[in-house]
């Protein structure tokens, strides 16, 4: 499955870079979209000093983990936004006829143009915010940061794939995807301990946003007092992300049997 993915990915890159100017502009545009939420935090902190006792460098670190995780998620599974279209137009029929996993075909149907900008930005942000954060870095901690970023990508992917899987039955899930994306972008950089506890729980149990950045960041920053879950659970965030992701892939495959071709 991995080799199929690589081959299809290379084809996608070749076709997308033909439109070079739009490629660059779209990459830049995607970066701007992600950067706005950090700019928002920056402005707020410059006006308010701290947010709930968290300084800008600490909040930026949460943001860094989530941004890099999002970049990875988008690069690998970004095409799931086209699920509605693929199912409604019958493109999915072709996937079923080929000896390649339909989900892999869906995810590699086009090169994710925003991926390059997202990843470049994500790498820059996570490195810079990690260096400026009040953390004593050690090899273990760096390893955990990598795990946290991967876990973040898995968790966000899991949510989005889960929603995309509903497309077989609902046929129109893009608004749901947009709503979920909006939650991630808006609340991603926040230390969730600052929000009303009910909201924080929703962002932990209903949408696993807390696992994507806040918990691992709090662990690395040593701010375990700000956790509202047992420490072991916060530490296990990357694992939670991975498990959710594996579950969502199974869910997606399971939903395929609800596919009713439009017959084009």
């Amino acid at each position, binding site marked *: 499955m991995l080799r199929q993915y690589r081959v299809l990915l290379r084809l996608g890159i070749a076709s997308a870079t033909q*439109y070079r*100017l*739009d*490629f*660059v*502009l*779209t*990459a*830049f*545009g*995607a970066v*701007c*979209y992600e*950067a*706005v939420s950090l*700019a*928002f935090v920056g*402005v*707020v902190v*410059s*006006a*308010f000093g701290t*947010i*709930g006792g968290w300084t800008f460098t600490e909040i930026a670190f949460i943001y860094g983990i989530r941004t890099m995780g999002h970049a990875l998620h988008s690069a690998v599974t970004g095409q799931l936004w086209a699920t509605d279209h693929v199912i409604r137009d019958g493109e999915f029929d072709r996937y079923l006829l080929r000896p390649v996993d339909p989900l892999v075909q869906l995810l590699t149907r086009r090169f994710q143009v925003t991926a390059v900008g997202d990843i470049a930005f994500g790498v820059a942000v996570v490195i810079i915010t990690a260096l400026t954060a009040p953390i004593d870095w050690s090899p273990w901690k760096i390893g955990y940061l990598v795990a946290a970023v991967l876990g973040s990508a898995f968790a966000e992917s899991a949510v989005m794939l889960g929603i995309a899987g509903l497309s077989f039955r609902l046929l*129109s899930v893009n*608004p749901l995807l*947009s*709503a979920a994306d*909006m*939650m991630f972008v*808006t*609340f991603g950089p*926040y230390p969730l301990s*600052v*929000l*009303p506890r009910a*909201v924080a729980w929703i962002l932990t149990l209903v949408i696993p946003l807390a696992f994507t950045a806040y918990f691992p960041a709090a662990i690395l920053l040593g701010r375990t007092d700000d956790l509202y879950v047992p420490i072991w659970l916060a530490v296990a965030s990357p694992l939670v992300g991975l498990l959710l992701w594996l579950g969502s892939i199974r869910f997606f495959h399971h939903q395929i049997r609800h596919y009713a071709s439009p017959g084009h």
Partner: protein
Amino acid sequence: MAALVRIGALTPWAYRSSAWLSLGLLGVQIGLYTVVWRAIYGSEPTVVAGVDVNTAVGYAVLGLTMASILHTWPGASIESRVRDGLIGIDLTRPLGLLGQNLAVQTGFVIAALPGAGVGVVVGLLVGGLQPPADIEAGIAFAVSLVLAFAVAQLITLLMSLSSFWTLEVGGLGMTFSVVRMFLSGAVVPLWFMPGWLQGVAAVLPFQASTYTPLAIYFGRPPGGLAVALLIQLGWIAVLSALCALVWSRARHRVVVQGG
């Protein structure tokens, strides 16, 4: 021209579920930002940049609602006509193209008006509706809002004209959309921004398309009421001239290419 406005008003609603869900997303967004602002302010009554939490939340409700109605997407009409070659017909009517597009954009704004209803309902639910600072502020707000509408549509029109060069508004459109959202004060009231950023926002037209009426509403017109309104009028003049200039260049470009 009225026919074009009608087309603009009906087109977004042709995709009915998509239109309804945009309204839903607006509601969700208002709710999210209300939670965020209240968390930022914390539990004690504080005043930052001369503003308390109720004003900040009220601004978010009104600002997000206004942005959803006024911030039209630049790719909507010129772009596709350039690509499909239909632009040739438009070229036979000199100033007509600009007027046509403004008409269609006005239609889009009308189509988005139900957003006001969403803003009011959700605003009530989250306890975020704020009355204007006083009666004069309310009246001045109405005047400023009309000017802001004009500024916003001229900005969108200018962006649309870029499709004569890039063929697709696409990537540039995303950047534009984000910059506009931020510097227009729709996401963060400009009064919270550091001095240098306010300076940047002040020399750009985005502020006049959203922030100015909002600030007037809450009793803090940037530079004073007269200055604020004059600046809006100024931008209308400047943007109109720019659109006419860019359009004349664009026409020349199409002719040269033998299109």
